[in-house]
Structures are given as C-alpha cells and as structure tokens.
C-alpha cells in the first residue's frame, strides 16, 4: 500500500483523525492525539495494513515556542510497507495514550522519550526514566533545557557561550 491508501484507510475508519499538513514529508501522516490508541490498534490489526512492527519512536522539540512531537515509524513485515505517524503535543502538558500494549517495544521507546522530553504516556504501566538516573531533574533533549547546578554534591561546571557557528 502506498501512503495515500494508508491515509484513506485511516480516514475511512476514523473520520477527522488525520490532519492535513503541507509541511510534512511524503511518507508522514499527522494524526490527532486524542484517538491515537484506537488508530494504532486498528493499524496493527487491520489485515490490509498489518503494521506489526514499531520501528522507532522519536521525540522532537520543534523549538522553544512551539510544540513537542512524537514520531512513530511503523513497518509491516507482511507487506513490507512503512509509514511515519506524527503527533503534536501541547508543550505545557504533553500527553498521549501509550501504545505499550499494542507493540511491546513501545514500553522502552516510550520510557526513553519520556526520559528525554517529559512526554507523558497515559496508560503506560511502568513509566519511569530509563537512561538518566531516577532523580534527574528536567528533560534533557528539550531546547529550553538548563542543566542542574549540582548533582549529589558534584558541581556541574558552567559552559561558556561559544561564538555562533558561521
């Protein structure tokens, strides 16, 4: 299936869930966050789509003033087609349903994205930091992240602002 057919399959089942956005590249589909769990389950179980593999979840910070995003790369072992789902989150309260029980690898990918961006995955059974220590403060990969001044008595040296890259 190509990207247009995948898109129309989703629209037929969940009308209004796909957001048209010209800025997306050609293999991306933007979806409203509110119905993501249902859409994800549909995409896995529908015999024509059969997206049985969640290849990657990438958290993205679009800039200090704009949204956070989760990007899901899905792939079908049966039909060998793939698609990328883009979901926007409100920066103040980034929340999205967890797909941990749809694809089992979602568990660790979501924990990683939570760890780095603070996006909270509702319904995840064990949402805690995975790479950073449990008591780390802040969300390191956000563009407005400021490092801690000290961590367990270890003072973090301040880095001088370097000159702009040409």
């Amino acid at each position, binding site marked *: 299936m190509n990207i247009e057919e995948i898109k129309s399959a989703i629209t037929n089942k969940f009308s209004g869930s796909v957001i048209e956005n010209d800025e997306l*590249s050609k293999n991306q589909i933007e979806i409203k966050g509110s119905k993501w769990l249902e859409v994800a389950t549909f995409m896995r179980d529908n015999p024509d789509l059969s997206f*049985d*593999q*969640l*290849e*990657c979840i*990438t*958290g*993205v*910070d679009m800039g200090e003033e704009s949204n956070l995003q989760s*990007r899901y*790369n899905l792939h079908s*072992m049966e039909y*060998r087609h793939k698609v*990328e789902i883009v979901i926007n989150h409100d920066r103040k309260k980034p929340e999205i349903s967890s797909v941990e029980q749809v*694809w*089992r*690898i979602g*568990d*660790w990918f979501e924990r990683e994205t939570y760890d*780095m961006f603070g996006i909270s995955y509702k319904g995840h059974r064990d949402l805690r*930091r*995975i*790479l*950073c*220590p449990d008591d780390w403060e802040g969300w*390191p*990969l956000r563009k407005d992240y400021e490092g801690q001044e000290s961590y367990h008595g270890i003072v973090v040296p301040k880095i001088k602002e370097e000159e702009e*890259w*040409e």
Partner: protein
Amino acid sequence: MGVVQTDQMVLNIGPQHPSTHGVLRLEVMTDGEIVSQIKPHLGYLHRCFEKHSENVTYEQVIPFTDRCDYLASMNSNFGYVVTMEELMEIKVSDRVEYIRVIMGELNRIASHLLALGVYGLDIGAFTPFLYMLRDRERILDMFEYTCGARLLYNYMWVGGVSHDLPKDFEKICIGFLDYFEPQIEEYNNLLTYNKIFIERTADVGVIPADVAISYGVSGPNLRGSGVNWDVRKDEPYSIYDRFEFDVPIGEGKFGTLGDCFDRYWVRMLEIKESVRILRQALKDLPSGDVHQALPKKIRPPKGSIYRRTESPRGDLGYYIISDGSPIPSRVKMRSPAFTALSCLDEVSKGWMISDVIAILGSLDIVLGEIDR
C-alpha cells in the same frame, strides 16, 4: 518435618559482571533457581550521544557514532553517512561504495567473531574465544593499515571515506579470506557441534516470531526466529543490490525454532555470507577518487529522514532532522541492541539463572549502543 518455606528472592547481576557484556544491571526475581521476572537497569554508559549531536556540526557527529557500537564502528559510520547522503541527495562514486561495503562486511565478521567467542565464554567454553579473537585481530590489523585506528575509525565521511585503500590492500584481504574460510569449520568443530554447548543452548530461550516482531527484535536475533528480514536485501542501501548473497534464517537445527542455538547458528552462517560479499566486492573494486563528492560545508536542506541499515546487531536506524543550519536539530539513533534487550524479561521467564546468561549472550548486546 515442616512444610518447606518458599519465598521470592531478588538476585542482583551486575553492573560489574563479565556475562552482562558491559555495565548492565539485572534485577532478577527468583523462586529457588527459577526466574520469574527480570528488570534490566540501563544507563550506566549513557554519554548523551543525542544531546551532544545537537551541539556539533554534522561531520563531528561521526566520531560519536563510533563510540556507540564500539564493536562495529564501521557499520555505525556507514548507517549515519548513508542517511546523511540520502538527506542531502549526494551521489558518491562507485569506489567509495565498494570500499564502504568491504569495510562494513569485514567489521561484521569481526563483530560476529567476538559475539560467538564471548558466547562460548559465557557458557564455559574458553578455547574457541581465543581462536576467534586471533582471527579478529587480523581484521583489526587491516583496519589499522587502512585508516590508522583499530576500534574507533571515523573512517566513513559524508560523501567519501577518509583514506583511500592502501595499494596492496586487495592482496592482503584476499589472503585473509583464503586463510579465514577454512577456519569456520574449525570453529564448528570446536564449539558448534560440542555436545555440552548444544545441550546448553538448544531449546533454551525460544523467541517466537510474533513476539520477536512485537519487541522490535532485529538482525540475526530476528532471523534466528525464522523471519526472513534483512535490510540489505529488503530495503537495499548503498550497493548491496549488486551482490549475490543468501539471508540465513533459523530452522531449529538442534531444537525449537528461535532458540539460543538458532541465533548462534545464524551468526555463523552470516560470516560465510559476508565472505561471499567480500570476494565479489574485491573482484569488482573500481578505481577512482574517494574524496570527489565530499562537500566543503555540510548544510542539508530543511527536512527530516529516517533510514535504517543492517548493522551486525540488526536494524540500526538514524532519525535526522535538519533545520538548514550546519548543526543538526535532532539526531536519534534507533539501536538494535536496545530493542533486543527489551525482550529479555519475557523470554527468560521460567528458565534457570544459568539459562538467563545463555539467553543474554545469545542476544549479542553492546551496552555502548543501548545507553548511547
């Protein structure tokens, strides 16, 4: 005699334990010697690869990728530069492509040799490890001869490679292959057909195909479960579509499909396929310039790309977002060992502690890549 009291016990394996293949801590819940749950604790080697990448230029990311998967740095480089070239729509010369494939496959052999040797070591066979390291050494010598480094190469650049091959490299490499191919039979005699080894690995830690796919397990681990998926064949990048090679998949040689032995055996067969690819590549190696397509300044157009390549451990994906400046806006590495480790809990349930070591070893994880 009273009733025997049974109780759950927590056993801590690692972080400093040789069979965790790095600094990984496993919190194992056991009932007697039977494992009921495993909680892996990661992050001991977290070096903020993705955060660093947002503060350096695109070329400067390449040395960081070396240090993620330090057993197959060439393949880490390869994945990154292929992704970058696809984003920038650069076409590199044929010689560069061939050199990259040669280096990638040599590194795959080196990485698999270490994986298989260490796996024997985990299970108690010391000798094969030394034999395999002896031959891996010769591959590292070839890398050193080419680019000066033995482990962390920084060899592949966007648009080219750092050094051209030395004049007599082809002769040395063919000499190595002629020496190496009969050695595979020696490994088999030493380890593969050893009765104790088969007893320890066959039927142990079965990963059914659907579980493997759901956990995103990839590479030799996935093929060990009988799924025919190889990025080199199914989503060809670079020039892999020009070579003839088979994709070995598990078949339950001595036990159930998808057990530890199958994963081991797939790696052994893959080494032979890599040798096949190498012979073809060396035969067709064209002449030319290796710096021709090197851009003076890397400034990719606005946009994002996700590309995966086949590293020795599986699907190595890079997600790169460019905002048009010389510094990447986001670099994400989808690491195959990370996904492989995530299924450990489910696979190990009901097995004994010694089998957990066998299962963990068969997944061939590299902690540098898991923690990034």
